[in-house]
Structures are given as structure tokens and as C-alpha cells.
């Protein structure tokens, strides 16, 4: 077991000499670094009444015992984050003593150890079980640290299986895909015909004597010429038609598979819990949905005109070359390794330099954007010269990185051209000799029968052979990129939905809005609880205010209530039912949230207000907007409710956005309304309007309001005061003021601050 590892024999012996029996330890775990920040195996042993850390004696003159503490002397334990690692500290005699250090590779393990030590210090029953070995952040097969619990291990993922899954995605379009592949084969077959026709043209019509063919009479020659040119035209035409159909089919299948994948990924993303979005930034996910799914289209393209087609062409043309003349076939292959090596060199060494150019371009755009967007600040501080210099550095970075690439490419391209020509030159020389000898010394010539037409045919195939050879060197690079991108997409699809609806979930047809938190503990990171044993009740229709310092757990309470996150311990009840047992749609229907930063979508104001209730009538929408004090400003827009607003409500002021979001919540008409700092980001005049609106919206509705401005909560039925994840005070405003605790202190601070003249207040007064 990870938390009960065997102590090395020699250390055990040394420890016994110190009077400590290691067999009594109920916890023995090895850390990787010592308290000097150097790699050294150090063992933490916890016995019933003492704790020791043990290391090999000798280093820095230290003995076997590094730390030795009695339980009775320890008041508490904590973990402390360093840079690249962390510490377990013990509070001894009023001083935090460093017990051990660990690198970040073992952070999860030692967070678990710290949890055990806390219980041990408090004399609680504690033990080590096999369950403790489970670490959802580590791959159970290879031990690689995963990005988040339940993530797919990239090391262990079966890449072949990824390929199979991609092919399975094409199953609905199997018929079209088979036709497409048949057309690809036909296209390759047809591409071989023109070379054969050219050979006939030369050997039969244009220079029959060099092939020892009877000369045609002029009329016959004209007919042959016309026929062969016509056949050439027909072949090219057929090739073009097949190419067109292949392209259309490829495009259809590719775009359709990409479309299917995008839809599946987005459907899954919308089902994943909010915690998933804490782990990934939106930019990353956008790249996955937009970019990685597009790789599917690239895959189909590779089948039709990319690597698969080229591979087939390489084999077929190679076979043709050898069947025409194996010796020339061999000469054709001579420069092939060079072509291959040169292409490998290009993709491995030169191509990555393009990344630097892209990076340089994006940095230049970033710099330019900053300078031009902030031009007022630049001018105000007289920093034009400095910004010009800064831009100069970015610009020089592009110049230098572009030169680096272009100088190399300009040398590389002629070099690779020479290699390609080399094969042609060998074939010209050897094949040309055979043609000459056969022509000039037909009686003495004992070499292969070789005509000018055959030579031209071989040269034609040669270029068809080298082309795919160069491209195929990118196959591994493309394959890695494709499999990685596809795997990233599958990772999303494979991410289990953590917050799922219970079987036989309870319906809430007529919710009353009674809420109860029972001994709730929760942390976004399990090792750092945000809520600690929180219990309280809210009656239907009651107004509950929540106050506390930033980070005290106020918003977390509401996140738990809406079941955006699952509690670690305890339970949350809505109308007497555990929220985990309630139908999710009913639960979300019960709880409406107005956030500090209202989120509006691109679209009309009407569409935003009806976001939660698409069936609302215009009368209901206007009534909601009126109640939210939004109607008047909406009507000032020329297009009224049909006014289009941009992303995140661009085009509206902060206060206007908030009032639209209140109208949205009002139309949704939830029995429980959560107001999370709903007025903290708006000016005083807007706040007044919003407060009036909220007074109407919250009447008779269970309301939980979080606010920093305590004056807005003064009229709440009850106020909960939170500190460090715990409820420290609860009561009415008057009761809490009499209590003289944290709430009283916060009110006092705000009263003193509000004596300062406010610009907002002056503006409002000026308007009166």
C-alpha cells in the first residue's frame, strides 16, 4: 500500500537503535526530496504517539532521524505549497515546523497523508486502507499524472483503436466511401494510360523506324495520330471527370464526418458538469471543437488524394516501371533513398522553423494591438519612443525568423530538384544508350530491346513515382498530428459525465422553494475544502442574505444548490428531497441565478429574455422587462426588442445587461432565485433601478442574495455570515448588529467608507 510502504531493512535497524520500533508505524510513506530541496528518499513514519522522518545517515552529517515529534506536542498539520513542490508543516509550540517536503509529482499523495495526520493529531480514529492507494489523478496502468481525475491516459491509449473509431464514424457513409475508393483506384489506373499512348505515338507514328516498326503511309499516320491524340484527350477527360466525382464524394463524406463529430463533441460538452470547465480554458475547448474535429475532413482528403492514394500510386507505378524494364526500374530507385532522406530532413529540421514564423507573426499582431488599443495611455505617459522600440523588436523577430526559413528553403529546393533530376538523368543516359545502340547497331546489339517510346514512357512514370515518394515522408508527421488531434477529440467524448441524473429521479411538479444544507463539505480541489460542515435552512419565500469576505465560500453555496458541483460530504435538500435525487431539468427549473457578470448571447434582446422560456408571449416578455426596469431603455433602441446585441451583450451598458438578465430570470419564474452580487458592477443610478426591479422580482419567492454592499441585504429575513468556509453568524440585521461580531465589523467598515464622497453619488445628485 502506498501509505504503508515497507521501510528498508537498514533504516529499520538504525531506527530500532534509536528506540523506535518501525513495526508499530500505522503509516509509512516515502517522499522524494529532503528539506534541503534535494532528491533523497525520506520516510515518514507515524506511530500511535509519535511521528518521525527517517533518512540515510551521513548526508550533511545528519543522523537517521530527521524530525521526531510527539503527538501531544502537535496542535495541527497543514500542507503548504512551494514552487515545484510543497511541505507538510506541524504546528508545535505555536511555531509551524516543516515536517517533510515533496515534489509536485507526489503532491496528491501527501495531501492525502496530511488529511490522515490531521485526524491523528485530533485523536480521531484513523487507518490506512487499500482505498487510499486509489488516485484518480494517476493512470492506473502506467502511473502517468492525468490532467484531471477520470482523464484518458495519452500514453496508454490504444492508437490503433483510435483509427478504428475514426473508420467507424464513416460507417453511415460506407456506400459512398466504397465508391470513392473505387474511383481513386480507377483514377490511378487511368493516370497510367497517357504514358502508354505517348509510347505508341512515338514508336508507331512519329519515329517507327527506330523501333523497327514498318513506316505508315501518310494517310494511315494521320489517322493514327488523330486517334492517339483523341485517346489522350479522352483519357485526360475521363481522369478529370473521375477526379471531380472523387473530390465531390470526398468533400461530402469529409465534411459530413466533421459535422457529425462537431455535433457529438458539442452535445457532450453541454452535458459535462461545470467543474470540467474549471479544468479547461474555453480557448482550448474551442480549438478542439473547431480545429481538431476538422482533422476528420483531412483524414478523408488523405484517403482520396493524400497518403493512401499516393501509396497506391507508388506501388502501381513502381510495378509498371519494373515490368517495362527491371534494369531501368532499378536505376529509377537509385536516387529514391536520397529523395526520402532529403524530404525527411525537410520535415524534421526545416518545417518546424515555420512555427517560429507563425509565432513571430502572432506576437507582432499582439504587440501592435496593444500599442494601438492603448494609444491614449501611450501618449498620456509619453512612451511613444519605447513602444516604437518594442514594436521594432517584434518586427525584427519576424524578419530574422523569416530569413532563417527562407534562406534554408531557397537552398533546399534547388538541392532536392537536383536529386529528382538525377534519377531522370540516369534513365536518360542508360535508356538513351540502349535506344542508340539498338538503332545504330541493330545486328551487333545484344542489350534489351528498347525504343524511344519506351524511354519516354519510363520517364513519364518516373515523375509519377518520385512525387508520392517525397510526400510520403510526411506520413508519420501527419499521422501523429492526426491521431493526436483525434485522440483529443475522443478524450472529450470519453470524459464521463460526473453529474448524472439518478435512476427514478424525483419530479418536482410544484416546487415550494424550501432549502436545507446539512453538514455540507465541498472543495473544488478535494484537498482544500471551501465549505466546511455548513448547515442551514431557508423557508419557502424567505429572503436570505449571505455575506463574507472574498473566498469565504458564498458563491460556492449557490453552485452546490444548483448542482453545478457535487458535494463531498453532507447533502442539500430542496423541498425535502436530496438534489442528487431530483430530476435535473426540474432542479434547474427551480433555481434561477442572476450573476454579477450577466452573460448575454449574440442575438436579439427578445431572444435573450426568452432564453429560458422560448414559448413566452411578447406580452409576458414586456411584462418581465417592465418589472426589471429594462423596458424603457429597450424601447429607446430603434429596433426595440428586436435590437441585435453582440457577444456577451456588447452594445449594452453593464446596468442594461444586468436588467435584461433580471428580466430573463423573471420570465423563467423560478421558485428559488439566487442573486450573486447582482448590483456590484453597476453605477449608483443603475443600482437603484436594479434594486427596484429585484424588489418586485423577489417578492414571495425564496431568495438567496450574495452582496458585498451590506446595505442591499439589510431587509433580508435572515443574514448568514461566512468566514473561511464556515457559517460564523446567522440572524437578522438587528440581531447581528447586537451580536457585535464579524457582521458588525463589516457594517462598520462599510459605513465609514460610505462617508467618502462618491463620484457616482455626485453624478446622480447633479442630474436631479
Amino acid at each position, binding site marked *: 500500500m502506498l501509505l504503508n510502504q515497507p521501510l528498508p531493512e537498514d533504516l529499520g535497524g538504525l531506527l530500532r537503535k534509536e528506540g523506535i520500533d518501525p513495526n508499530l508505524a500505522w503509516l509509512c510513506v516515502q517522499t522524494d526530496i529532503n528539506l534541503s530541496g534535494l532528491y533523497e528518499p525520506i520516510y515518514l513514519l507515524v506511530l500511535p504517539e509519535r511521528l518521525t522522518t527517517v533518512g540515510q545517515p551521513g548526508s550533511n552529517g545528519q543522523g537517521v532521524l530527521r524530525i521526531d515529534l510527539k503527538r501531544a506536542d502537535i496542535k495541527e498539520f497543514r500542507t503548504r505549497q*512551494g514552487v*515545484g513542490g510543497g511541505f507538510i508543516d506541524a504546528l508545535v509550540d505555536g511555531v509551524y*515546523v516543516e515536517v517533510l517536503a515533496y*515534489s509536485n509529482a507526489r*503532491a496528491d499523495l501527501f495531501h492525502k497523508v496530511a488529511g490522515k495526520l490531521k485526524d491523528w493529531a485530533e485523536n480521531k480514529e484513523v487507518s490506512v486502507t487499500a482505498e487510499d492507494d486509489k488516485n484518480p489523478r494517476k493512470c492506473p496502468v502506467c502511473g502517468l499524472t492525468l490532467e484531471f481525475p477520470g482523464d484518458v491516459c495519452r500514453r496508454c491509449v490504444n492508437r490503433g483503436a483510435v483509427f478504428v473509431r475514426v473508420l467507424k464514424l464513416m460507417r453511415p457513409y460506407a456506400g459512398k466511401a466504397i465508391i470513392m475508393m473505387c474511383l481513386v483506384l480507377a483514377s490511378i489506373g487511368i493516370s497510367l494510360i497517357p504514358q502508354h499512348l505517348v509510347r505508341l505515338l512515338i514508336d508507331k507514328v512519329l519515329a517507327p523506324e527506330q523501333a523497327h516498326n514498318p513506316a505508315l503511309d501518310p494517310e494511315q499516320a494521320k489517322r493514327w495520330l488523330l486517334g492517339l491524340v483523341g485517346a489522350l484527350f479522352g483519357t485526360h477527360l475521363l481522369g478529370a471527370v473521375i477526379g471531380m466525382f472523387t473530390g465531390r464524394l470526398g468533400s461530402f463524406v469529409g465534411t459530413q464526418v466533421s459535422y457529425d463529430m462537431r455535433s457529438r463533441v458539442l452535445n457532450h460538452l453541454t452535458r459535462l458538469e461545470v467543474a470540467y470547465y474549471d479544468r479547461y480554458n474555453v480557448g482550448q475547448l474551442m480549438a478542439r471543437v473547431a480545429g481538431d474535429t476538422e482533422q476528420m475532413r483531412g483524414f478523408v482528403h488523405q484517403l482520396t488524394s493524400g497518403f493512401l492514394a499516393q501509396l497506391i500510386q507508388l506501388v502501381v507505378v513502381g510495378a509498371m516501371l519494373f515490368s517495362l524494364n527491371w534494369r531501368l526500374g532499378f536505376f529509377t530507385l537509385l536516387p529514391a533513398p536520397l529523395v526520402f532522406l532529403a524530404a525527411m530532413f525537410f520535415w524534421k529540421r526545416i518545417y518546424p522553423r515555420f512555427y*517560429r514564423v507563425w509565432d513571430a507573426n502572432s506576437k507582432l499582431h499582439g504587440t501592435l494591438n496593444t500599442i494601438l488599443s492603448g494609444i491614449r495611455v501611450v501618449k498620456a505617459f509619453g512612451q511613444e519612443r519605447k513602444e516604437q522600440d518594442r514594436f521594432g523588436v517584434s518586427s525584427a523577430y519576424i524578419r530574422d525568423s523569416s530569413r532563417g526559413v527562407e534562406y534554408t528553403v531557397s537552398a533546399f529546393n534547388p538541392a532536392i530538384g537536383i536529386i529528382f533530376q538525377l534519377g531522370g538523368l540516369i534513365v536518360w543516359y542508360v535508356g538513351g544508350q540502349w535506344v542508340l545502340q539498338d538503332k545504330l547497331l541493330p545486328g551487333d546489339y545484344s542489350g534489351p530491346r528498347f525504343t524511344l517510346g519506351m524511354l519516354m514512357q519510363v520517364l513519364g512514370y518516373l515523375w509519377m513515382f518520385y512525387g508520392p515518394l517525397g510526400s510520403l515522408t510526411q506520413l508519420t508527421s501527419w499521422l501523429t498530428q492526426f491521431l493526436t488531434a483525434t485522440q483529443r477529440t475522443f478524450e472529450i467524448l470519453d470524459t464521463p459525465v460526473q453529474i448524472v441524473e439518478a435512476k427514478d429521479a424525483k419530479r418536482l411538479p410544484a416546487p415550494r422553494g424550501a432549502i436545507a444544507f446539512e453538514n455540507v463539505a465541498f472543495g473544488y480541489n478535494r484537498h482544500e475544502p471551501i465549505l466546511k460542515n455548513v448547515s442551514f435552512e431557508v423557508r419557502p419565500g424567505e429572503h436570505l442574505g449571505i455575506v463574507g469576505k472574498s473566498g469565504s465560500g458564498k458563491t460556492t453555496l449557490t453552485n452546490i444548490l444548483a448542482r453545478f458541483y457535487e458535494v463531498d460530504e453532507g447533502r442539500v435538500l430542496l423541498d425535502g428531497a436530496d438534489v442528487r435525487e431530483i430530476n435535473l431539468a426540474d432542479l434547474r427549473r427551480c433555481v434561477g441565478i442572476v450573476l454579477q457578470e450577466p452573460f448575454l448571447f449574440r442575438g436579439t434582446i427578445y431572444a435573450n429574455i426568452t432564453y429560458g422560456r422560448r414559448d413566452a408571449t411578447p406580452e409576458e416578455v414586456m411584462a418581465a422587462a417592465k418589472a426589471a426596469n429594462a423596458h424603457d431603455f429597450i424601447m429607446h433602441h430603434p429596433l426595440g426588442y428586436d435590437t441585435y446585441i453582440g457577444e456577451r451583450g456588447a452594445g449594452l451598458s453593464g446596468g442594461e445587461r444586468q436588467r435584461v438578465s433580471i428580466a430573463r430570470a423573471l420570465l423563467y419564474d423560478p421558485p428559488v432565485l439566487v442573486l450573486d452580487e447582482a448590483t456590484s458592477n453597476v453605477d449608483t443610478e443603475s443600482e437603484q433601478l436594479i434594486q427596484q426591479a429585484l424588489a418586485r422580482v423577489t417578492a414571495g419567492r425564496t431568495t438567496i442574495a450574495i452582496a458585498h454592499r451590506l446595505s442591499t441585504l439589510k431587509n433580508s429575513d435572515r443574514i448568514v455570515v461566512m468566514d473561511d468556509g464556515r457559517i460564523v453568524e446567522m440572524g437578522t440585521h438587528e440581531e447581528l448588529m447586537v451580536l457585535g461580531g464579524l457582521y458588525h465589523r463589516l457594517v462598520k467598515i462599510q459605513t465609514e467608507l460610505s462617508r467618502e464622497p462618491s463620484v457616482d453619488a455626485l453624478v446622480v445628485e447633479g442630474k436631479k
Partner: protein
Amino acid sequence: MTDRGTPEAVIGPDPTKVRFLTPHMCRIHLGSHGALHVTVANERIYGGVYAAYAFPVAYPDKYIALIHSVGRGRDIEIGIIHDLNEFPPADADLVREALARRYFVHTITKLTSIGWKYGFIAVEAETDKGPVDFLMRWQYDRAVDYGQDGKVLIDVDENRYLIPDLRQLPPGELADLQRYIYW
């Protein structure tokens, strides 16, 4: 003089002002169980102190904060050492040791190999703490700038590997690195 009461009882210096610690006003020493202590003249002894850089890149030997934990996640800054070299060597060494403990960073001395493996960048390197091999995600935030010309690589476990100055790498190693870490 050490406060043996509850940690919450501690009252620190004025939190609105930066206080520079000088050798004349304070002494740095070890207390029980090897905990770092700082005695500030006419004030008190602070136990269980740790050190943190204010400018780890620009001034690695200057502007070092000494911080005292008062419990329940609260820390107070005792003051800032303007220049560690002004302190007696024994005191300065204790601070340097405390910094070495807090900043567990491998300094790369030789980049043995770098490649693409399992969808990660796989790195093998020699460091001041011995040879290492690690996997890192190919993302901008996993190789961050360190001063003008340095980089800090962050592996899947959040361990840190410092290349103080890319220009000091041999050309071959730099080219290998920039094939992947091109930003």
C-alpha cells in the same frame, strides 16, 4: 520572547508599508525542530518563517521577503531583505537554504534529447539535481518565459525545469528545443 500563544495573536508590522530588514535590526536563526526564526529588535521573535523572492529573475539575491505563518491560511510579511549579501554569511545561508526548499526547480545543464511521444513533448536532460526525463504538454503555458532569454518548462506533474538562458545552450540543443518550444 517568542509568542507561545495562539498564532492568531500575532501582530505584525504595518501591512500598508514595505519594511526593509537590515542586519542591524534583525537576526536570522534556527529554532526548535530546525524551523527558521527571525528575531526583530524591539519587536519579537517570529518562528516558522519561510522566504520568498520578490524578483526571482531580475534580482535573485535581493528583495527577499521573510514571511511568518499565523495559521488558518494567513501569513504576514515580516519584512524584505534588500540585499542578502549585507547579512552575516550564516544568516544569509539560512535564508538561501529556505529559498532552496521553497523553490524546487531543476536547472537544466544539458538537453540530452527532446521528442514527441504519446502526444506529449518528451525531454531527457541533465540538471543540477541529476538526470531527469519528463513529459510535458505541448502548450504555451507549459513553457513560460524566464526573464529575457530563459524558459521554465513545466511537466505533467507541475515540476519545473529551468533553462536560465537559451543563448547559452549549444546550437544543436537550442535547435532541438526550438523545434518544439518555438515561442
